[in-house]
Structures are given as C-alpha cells and as structure tokens.
C-alpha cells in the first residue's frame, strides 16, 4: 500500500532519516536554530538502532567528536547553522587533512553573525567552499525538497565514505522546517556505500597509502595501530617537513575529488534543450525557479533550468557548456551573490550574465520569486508595467521569513529577444 510508506516529514526529520538509512551511527551536535530538529530526532532514533547521540558543549567539540567517532569505524554526522558552521571550520579542515569521512549539515539561516536566526538564507554556500584555512577538498550537496533531503543525505554519506572526506549538506530554513509527504525508501532501494577497510596485515597498512587513490581506512581498535594528524604527513600518517611530500599530500587530497567530479556532480536539467535563457538555481530558490520555468514553458517561452544538487565541486562543465550556447544565465540566490562568482567565472564571457546594475525593462527574478504571487512572477514583463512596479515599490512586509536578502540589487535583466508579452 502506497499509503503505508508515505509520511509527512519535516525537512530536518528527513535529514535525520536519511542519515539513519545511510547507516549513520554517531551524532554529536549543539543546538542551533533552524537545524535543531535533526539532533532532536536523532536523539530519539539513534539509540533505537544502537547508535550514539551526544549533545556536546559546543560546535567545535561536536565536529571533533564525530571525527573521533568516525575513526572507530562509525558513520558520523553533525548538524548546525551559520554561527556553528563558522565555529566548526577548523575541525572541518582537520577532517579534510586527516581524510576522515563525516557529514556536516548546515541548515542556512540569515547572516552575517547572529543575523536573523529564524529566517532562511543561502548565504553560507561560499563559506562551505572556503571557510577553513588552507587548500582543501570540498564536497557539498544542496537538496531542495524534503524527499531530496533524505536522498541527498544518503548520498552525502556515500560520498564521504567513498572519498574519505567530509561532505556538507546545505539547505535553508525553508526546506528544513517545511513538511512534505515523502516515501521512506526500503532497504536496498537507495545505494549505500560503506568505507573500504584494509585487508592487508597491519605491518603493510598505511592509512594514506598513495598506491590507492583513496586508501582504505582501518578502524581504531582492530589491530591496525595507525597514526592520524592534522600536520602534513607521509603515507604512514606521520608528520613530515619534506616539501615534496607535503606538496604531494596536499595535491592528493584535492585530486581525489578533482578526478572524480563526474561521479560527484549531479544536476537537474529542465528544458535546457533549446533555451536561450537559463536559470542557475539551487536549494529552495530553485523551487521557485522550477515553477517559473514551467510557467514560462506553458506560455510558450524557452526558459531552462540548471539545478545543481552538487554545489561543490562546482558544476563547471555544465556551466561552461551552457554558456556557449545560451544567451543569458540568471542566478537567483537567497544571498547577495555567491555562486554567481563561479557561474561568471565559467561562463568565461561566452554568454550574457545578469548585470545587477541594469535597471532596464526585463526579466524579474530572484527576490521577486518570493515577493510575487506566482501569477505575477513574470518571465517577461516590463519593469515599468504595473504588477512588477507595484511589487518593487512596496514589498509586502509580513512574510518575513521569505523576504530576506537575496541579491543586493534588482534582479532585472534585459532580454529583448525573448520578451514577447508586455504588461
């Protein structure tokens, strides 16, 4: 019976369920809005399957604890939001360097600083890439639907275990707190990847053995008495001052992701075939974009959507190719412009990019996705035409959760070519 499997879950609950499905058996965290429900759910659910939940003294201790736990062989996770994510940065770098699989969820809220704790945002996506010091590999997924939060959390664990690296799950308060019916996958329905353990005898075991692309990872207490450090190290895990080995080590941890981008990338593509206008959007902003793209299609306009589910590594290939054949890429974000840095970079000037300074008549995007009731969310409409103008003049101020900072200036782009209707 379909009814049996369908459940109405909150995004954060779906995240917790995804973790359990993936085999997570250790969670350490510190409460913070709007991520706390993940911890609350796991505090109840984990012990039922023999897993461990601990509320640590802070976020720094939490990332530390999951890293320690992961080294004993347990799949581990922590979840937080902006301020906690900032605090975890040093620990994330350690996990990158020591190549310890773990999953870090950031349910994004309004920043900077304490900001707007109960409001959504997408303003930590660049931090996910650059937040910790030093060059380091970054993998981050960005689900947009409750069902997807579950499946992307599973994928995050898979990538973490497969590539021996921390993986981030980034979504915002909107999807985190929203409830949608989802189907809990049965065992075997979604792929679950476990880390590869060594089979050699302990004398031959090197935790960073460069004869593998990703070396098997033993668990503490099982006879492989290996060393783990955040210092640059050799294949045996012990520190080195040798410049060549340092360089090689640093390159290796980057390369293991770099070389497998095809495996890690995941995009949803909608109506891309012969679209000249394409929206690049992720997370809950992409839900609006998706809606708008469909609407545009309904009214006979060719508008496409590129929705990356893997934010990092950045879907450079998809963007680069797209840029060569479309006229414009528009990047609505619930922030002041972050992923657009990479989109612009890989567009390489091949297509037009939304010019934030242009206030000419054009397409309305981004902020207006939310500001406008959908029937006014026009794919094409003059800035000076009435519904649009009205909205620009007096954004309704009640729906505060959704009225947060998107891009700093009007999300307006002038694309005469595809502009057919004027109202």
């Amino acid at each position, binding site marked *: 019976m379909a009814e049996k499997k*369908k459940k109405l879950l909150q995004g954060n609950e779906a995240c917790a369920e995804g973790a359990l499905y993936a085999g997570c058996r250790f969670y350490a965290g510190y409460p913070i809005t709007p991520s706390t429900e993940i911890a609350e759910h796991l505090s109840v659910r984990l012990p039922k399957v023999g897993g461990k939940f601990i509320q640590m003294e802070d976020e720094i201790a939490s990332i530390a604890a999951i890293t320690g736990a992961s080294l004993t062989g347990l799949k581990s996770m922590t979840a937080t939001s902006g301020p906690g994510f900032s605090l975890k940065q040093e620990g994330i770098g350690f996990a990158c360097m020591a190549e310890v699989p773990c999953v870090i969820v950031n349910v994004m809220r309004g920043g900077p600083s304490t900001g707007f704790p109960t409001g959504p945002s997408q303003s930590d996506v660049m931090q996910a890439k650059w937040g910790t010091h030093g060059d380091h590999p970054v993998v981050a997924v960005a689900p947009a639907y409750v069902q997807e939060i579950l499946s992307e959390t599973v994928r995050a664990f898979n990538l973490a275990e497969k590539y021996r690296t921390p993986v981030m799950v980034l979504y915002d*308060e909107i999807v985190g*707190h929203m409830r949608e019916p989802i189907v809990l996958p049965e065992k075997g329905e979604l792929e679950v990847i476990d880390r590869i353990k060594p089979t050699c005898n302990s004398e031959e075991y090197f935790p960073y053995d460069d004869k593998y692309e990703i070396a098997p990872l033993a668990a503490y207490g099982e006879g492989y008495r290996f060393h783990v450090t955040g210092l640059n190290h050799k294949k045996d895990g012990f520190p080195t001052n040798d410049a060549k080995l340092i360089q090689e080590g640093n390159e290796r941890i980057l390369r293991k992701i770099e070389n497998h981008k095809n495996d890690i990338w995941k995009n949803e593509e909608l109506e891309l075939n012969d679209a000249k206008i394409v929206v690049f959007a992720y997370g809950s902003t992409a839900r609006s974009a998706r809606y708008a793209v469909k609407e545009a299609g309904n009214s006979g306009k060719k508008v496409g959507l590129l929705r990356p589910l893997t934010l990092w590594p950045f879907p450079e290939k998809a963007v680069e190719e797209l840029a060569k054949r479309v006229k414009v890429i528009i990047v609505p974000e619930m922030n002041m412009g972050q992923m657009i840095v990479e989109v612009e970079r890989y567009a390489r000037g091949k297509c037009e990019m939304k010019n934030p300074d242009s206030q000419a008549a054009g397409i309305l995007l981004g902020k207006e996705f939310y500001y406008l009731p959908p029937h006014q969310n026009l794919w094409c409409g003059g800035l000076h035409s009435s519904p649009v103008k009205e909205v620009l003049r007096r954004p309704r101020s009640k729906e505060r959760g959704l009225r947060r900072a998107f891009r700093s200036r009007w999300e307006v782009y002038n694309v005469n070519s595809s502009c057919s209707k004027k109202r």
Partner: protein
Amino acid sequence: MSQRYEMRFSGSGGQGMILAGIIMAEAAAIYDNKNAVQSQSYGPEARGGASKAEVIISSQPIDYPKATGIDAMLALTQEACAKYCNDIKEGGILLVDSEEVKNLPRGNFKTYSFPITSIARDELGKTIVANIIALGMITELTKIVSHEAIEKAVLARVPAAFLDLNKKALQIGFEKAKAVKV
C-alpha cells in the same frame, strides 16, 4: 495557479494550529494521495503571540512552497485574524471563532463566524479540541480533502485515549459547517 489550494490555520500559541496544519497536510497527502506542503511560522513569534501554519495542496508537484494567495483561512483569535488575513484571495473562505474575532476583516471572500471554542467546551468539555472541530468545519467548507481522509489523519495523530473525543469533535465540525453553509 488554479491547481494550488492554499490554507492557513491561525490562532495563538498552544491552540494547536500547527497540529491542525499537519493533519490537513497528511489528510491530503497520505490519505487523499495529493501533494501537500506544510509550513509554519517560527521565531520569537512562536512564543505567546499569534501562530500560524500553512498548507498547500495540489494535484501537481508543489515547487513554490509558501502561500501566495489564501484559499481558506482559519482564525481562532482576533490578533491572528488581523495579522494574517490580508492574503486571502478573492472568493476565498475565512472561518473565525465568533467569540474571539469581533472585528471581521473586509474583502472579497466569504466569512464564516462560529463559536468554535465554546462549542468545544460546551459540547465536549474540552477547549483543547477546538482545533479539531475547526478542521472538521474547514474540511466541510472547502471540500479540499475527503471526510475519510481527514478522519484517518486526525486519528493517526491523537493519543489512543482521546480517539473518541477527537472523532466526535470532527463530526461536530462537519455538521456545524453544513449548518453554516446553508
């Protein structure tokens, strides 16, 4: 967008508005096999003041997750009503507790005013089930989910000891709504 049906449940913290929203979403999504999205207001607001839950129901996948124009709204307090009523669509429905909401908002929608909380107290001895009575009424008024679905959804969410009470509350809701409708 015609296939979207947007509902808002509002009252004060503790009146079970979020539970009402969840039950409505479950009725639609799980027992009536439609799509549904439920969201709610967070933040300092959740403490004490007005509280609200929103449910969007559609036969299509729901991308845009928030309310854009309310088809049906419930308001159990004056404050909630004043604060949240201004998104009601033309032709929409507003159901208020007549003893609490004295200033009815004006607009191109149908307003049903009914002493929901006192009915709960007088007929069932528990004001706590006012939200369930309201759910029954709104189901009957909007017909957006079936009686069976909402009943299943209610019963799946309430503690075993209170199954009967809630079943009755729902029935009362159906009936009272039929009455006001006529």
